């Protein structure tokens, strides 16, 4: 296991096929959920008015669906990368996929047919007190989350099994010996950064899924009448530990893909250096504690956790920026970067990850959070590092994989579409920030006339984003069949 960039000839075909299904399903779901987001933004603009009932149902589905879709695509990309170097179980990936999709299906049914509109965060006890939906619909959503968490758990266990087997245990997969004594082992024995990141994110994925499963137990018990009520603060901590970590996982998993993909376009390897190992091993802990910045306004939360939330949210940005972002920029600088759809999406993703991160760090500062919490500033920052971060990285890899497998390179129009993706997405998210600065609340079906201007300016940018995505989707669809055929053979 060396530090060379990852080629994907020699791929285990069965794993690669499962990975492509993850990526394509994630992309298709992203498009569908994006359409729901567009409808909500049109409603905010006063251009297309929908009922509050439908608005909140679509909002719930959009939130849950987007998180699931982007994570699924990112996991698919990482599994495709891993399949070059470690033995992943294709069967485990398919079982996880069935569980994950069952979960997504239940959420779709609950929102579209069961009228569930409790928000993707399902803040307890709202699902039990919805007034417009039944307990059965709430239980369908909980069941959906149960299956999704199970799916995530299965993928993470499969990844952990593969990386630890390849590197002689967890300590090897995390390069712990190298971390403690950098001169004791030659760097050629180290896991590739993508393998290291896969191990780190899989550990947190296991912990997040277990938190999700633990969280569901008392809720099912309440639904069955075994307990009378579940503590609201306990529930909030657990649902955010599960949900926020799941959302965070997307960006970190997607970053793992960048470590493997960017070298193809710069011609420079991304090495497993000591800072890379230190930063990513640290992420295991940091990713689990920063969720609590969502509870700053819950004054009942112990002060120590609030302080930890702010410090943790600050510190978690450092390894990402100083190691991954600076590392990526160093890889690009003077490299003779080959401009292509994947490399364009990656550089856009690098920009968005940092810009969204700046918005997040500001919001994680408690006095700022006092005037920004649950305003449009919150969707602003996570939409930025989703659309112009995790999702951009995942689509970059999907395009890269399909183009390489099919042997059909991109054209000038596709590269232009990739840049337009950036312009559309940036305009769209900046208007969220502007609305947040004007104290516009998030999760409001009806916007005051003076608030509508922000959505009205955003709408043309969303249109541009949709056009760019449609172009790239058609482009990828044309490459899908020949690419799929190539996965039927294993080329060593």
């Amino acid at each position, binding site marked *: 296991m060396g530090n060379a960039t990852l080629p994907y000839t020699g791929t285990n075909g069965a794993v690669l096929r499962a990975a492509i299904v993850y990526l394509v399903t994630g992309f298709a779901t992203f498009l569908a959920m994006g359409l729901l987001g567009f409808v909500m933004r049109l409603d905010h603009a006063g251009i297309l008015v929908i009922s*509050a009932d439908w608005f*909140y149902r679509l909002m719930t589905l959009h939130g849950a669906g987007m998180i699931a879709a982007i994570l699924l695509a990112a996991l698919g990309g990482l599994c495709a990368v891993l399949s070059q170097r470690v033995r992943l179980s294709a069967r485990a990936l398919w079982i996880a996929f069935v569980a994950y999709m069952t979960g997504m299906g239940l959420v779709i049914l609950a929102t579209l047919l069961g009228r569930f*509109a409790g928000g993707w965060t399902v*803040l307890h*006890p*709202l699902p039990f*007190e*919805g007034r417009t939906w039944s307990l059965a619909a709430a239980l369908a959503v909980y069941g959906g989350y149960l299956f999704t968490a199970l799916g995530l758990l299965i993928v993470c266990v499969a990844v952990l099994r593969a990386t630890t087997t390849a590197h002689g245990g967890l300590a090897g997969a995390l390069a712990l010996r190298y971390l403690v004594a950098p001169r004791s082992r030659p760097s050629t024995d180290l896991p590739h950064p993508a393998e290291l990141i896969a191990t780190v994110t899989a550990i947190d994925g296991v912990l997040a899924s277990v938190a999700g499963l633990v969280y569901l137990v008392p809720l099912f018990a309440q639904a069955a009448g075994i307990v009378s*009520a579940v503590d*609201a*603060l306990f529930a909030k901590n657990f649902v955010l530990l599960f949900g926020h970590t799941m959302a965070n996982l997307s960006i970190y998993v997607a970053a793992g893909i960048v470590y493997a993909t960017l070298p193809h376009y710069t011609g420079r390897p991304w090495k497993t250096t000591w*800072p890379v190992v230190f930063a990513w091993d640290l992420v295991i802990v940091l990713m689990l504690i920063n969720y609590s910045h969502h509870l700053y*306004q*819950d*004054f*009942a939360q112990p*002060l120590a956790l609030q302080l930890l939330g*702010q410090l943790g949210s600050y510190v978690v940005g*450092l390894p990402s*920026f*100083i190691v991954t972002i*600076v590392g990526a*920029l*160093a890889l*690009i*600088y*003077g*490299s*003779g*970067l080959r401009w292509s759809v994947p490399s364009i999406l990656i*550089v856009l993703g*690098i*920009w968005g990850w*940092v*810009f969204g991160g*700046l918005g997040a*760090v*500001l919001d994680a*500062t*408690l*006095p*700022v959070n*006092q*005037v*920004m*919490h*649950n*305003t449009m*500033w919150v969707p602003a920052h996570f939409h930025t590092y989703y659309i112009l971060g995790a999702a951009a990285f995942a689509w970059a890899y999907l395009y890269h994989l399909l183009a390489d497998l099919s042997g059909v390179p991109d054209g000038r129009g596709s590269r232009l579409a990739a840049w337009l993706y950036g312009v559309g997405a940036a305009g769209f998210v900046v208007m969220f*920030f502007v609305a*947040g*600065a*004007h*104290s516009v*609340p998030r*999760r*409001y*079906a*009806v916007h005051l006339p*003076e608030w509508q201007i922000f959505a009205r300016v955003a709408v043309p940018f969303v249109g541009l984003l949709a056009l760019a995505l449609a172009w790239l989707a058609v482009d990828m669809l044309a490459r899908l069949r020949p690419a799929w055929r190539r996965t039927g053979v294993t080329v060593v």
Partner: protein
Amino acid sequence: MNPRLVFWVLLALGAVWTTVWAFVLLRSRAGPAFEVIEPAENRLRLRLLFTFGLILLVTFALSLRAYPYSSFRTRALGAPADSVRVMAMQWGWSLSRDTVPARVPVAFVVESKDVNHGFAIYTPDGALLTQVQAMPGYTNRLIYRFDRTGTYTVRCLEYCGIFHHFMLTKFIVR
């Protein structure tokens, strides 16, 4: 804290970052060998770590003074001279009084009858001033001193069901 100021801070930081990003992209044509760049990258990392670490540490220390929790606000503003009991419910607010005094600390004692709500106070010109969660089973105390008289709006900022956006009330500061 003024939300508009936060936005300008973001824009300023974003402009610096965008300049760095664009500079690297403009210099992405073939240049010095990676072996030349690598040592400079490591030095840069260390400098960034110390610079950002220090900035964040100072920001953290300064932010403590403006924490919204009762003990911090009491220390900053003095003990509350008046209080208002607030009950949140789907989908309305019940305030024990509709006028509060200006220029003295007031404690809002916030509870919820049913689900989580967000008790958020907006200025007469529509800016978010301060907020606290209203949680079932918990009592949260929000202390604030109003320096301007006028009619303030209370909005719910925690999604609480399909009439969430209608959940507002007003009170007068005089």
